[in-house]
């Protein structure tokens, strides 16, 4: 039986990918960012996931305004890195897991989550930067990846509560997949940042810290936080944080926090990172 063994959350700042790709990760500006992921890289070498369900958002790369799916699941054999205007990132092609992805799509739809099924999709920095942070620069990614794209560009994104419940449904779907697979669920984006307008550059460390605490200890409470609070307090792009609730929903009610990292700045953004481990409930 497939099982969810961990949840990972991380920001997906494009400049982090560019720093790595251009050999600038050792510069003083970037060193603390990459240093913050060293123990996580060691951890994941031992954790060895077979498949990562990677929750992220597309940034006008695969989806323009012609088609804006709220939740889309990548069921293809593979996904090429997108050309975001500077040429594609020099990272390996992402290998999918069509069997599990189709199983998830079917289970989720019958569980009343109306997923969009995607058979061809390029993946942008939202998906590839988290892989780079956790795995470095390998010739091939060491696991299969199921991209799960959430619309957070066109308002309104799904509510935090809907994202959390999608995570719960993902946990049910994974548990009903017969093959023995070690599955992780990742939530990406955030933390506080605003890229647009006169308020660009907003960072709210107090909000971010409270979000991290509450995501771990009181996820239902965090799931009830309305969009206006994210946009006002964490910036217009900080609303990406609802995607972390998908990851959290896929874990158990109680979790062990294995890793937390927070750093300002990476370009315009606060970088946040968590590794959480489920604690299965013991039968009474």
């Amino acid at each position, binding site marked *: 039986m497939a099982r969810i063994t961990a949840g990972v959350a991380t920001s997906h700042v494009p400049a982090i990918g560019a720093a790595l790709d251009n050999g600038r990760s050792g510069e003083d500006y970037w060193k603390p960012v990459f240093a913050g992921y060293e123990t996580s890289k060691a951890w994941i070498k031992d954790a060895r996931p077979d498949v990562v369900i990677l929750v992220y958002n597309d940034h006008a790369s695969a989806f323009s*305004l012609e088609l804006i799916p709220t939740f889309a699941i990548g069921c293809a054999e593979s996904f090429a890195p997108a050309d975001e205007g500077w040429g594609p990132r020099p990272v390996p092609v992402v290998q999918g897991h069509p069997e599990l992805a189709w199983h998830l799509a079917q289970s989720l739809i019958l569980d009343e989550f109306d997923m969009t099924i995607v058979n061809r999709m390029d993946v942008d920095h939202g998906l590839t930067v988290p892989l780079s942070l956790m795995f470095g620069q390998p010739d091939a990614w060491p696991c299969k990846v199921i991209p799960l794209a959430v619309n957070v560009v066109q*308002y309104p994104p799904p509510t935090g509560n809907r994202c959390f419940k999608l995570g719960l449904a993902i946990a049910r779907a994974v548990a009903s997949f017969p093959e023995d697979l070690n599955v992780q669920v990742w939530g990406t984006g955030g933390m506080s940042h605003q890229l647009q*307008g*006169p308020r660009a550059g907003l960072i709210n460390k107090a909000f971010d810290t409270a979000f991290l605490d509450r995501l771990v200890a009181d996820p239902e409470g965090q799931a009830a936080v309305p969009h206006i609070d994210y946009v006002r307090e964490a910036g217009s792009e900080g609303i990406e944080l609802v995607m972390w609730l998908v990851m959290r929903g896929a874990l158990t009610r109680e979790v062990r926090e294995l890793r937390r990292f927070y750093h300002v700045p990476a370009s315009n953004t606060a970088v946040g990172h968590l590794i959480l481990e489920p604690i299965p409930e013991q039968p009474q």
Partner: protein
Amino acid sequence: MAENPFKDIPGTTLFDAEQSRKGYHLNMFCMSLMKAEGREAFKADEGAYLDRWPMTAEQKAAVIARDWNGMLALGGNIYFTSKIAATDGLSFQQIAAMMSGVSQADYAAMMLAGGRSIEGVRSKKGDA
């Protein structure tokens, strides 16, 4: 109708239904810059290239003037308009500095010092 609470946030344009409808062609023009052919044709003759989309005269003028805040007001979305910046060889941080009205050096220094503080920019009515 109740007051839209998002309009109370200073210096922020929510990309909602109204903005998306207004900016559809502007944003789809930006999308065309994802391809090298689009970028080259735009650079060769900006006005002629923009005429391929049924954009308003104000939208075209804002693109040509690289009025980044103006484009947002006219329905542009930052993930789309940033493709113009990429075509110009500008980084996200450079246009963020322009949109917030400071030099790139000052903006970068602000970010290194922890970013723009939330204090005073929560609400147009003033922070409670």
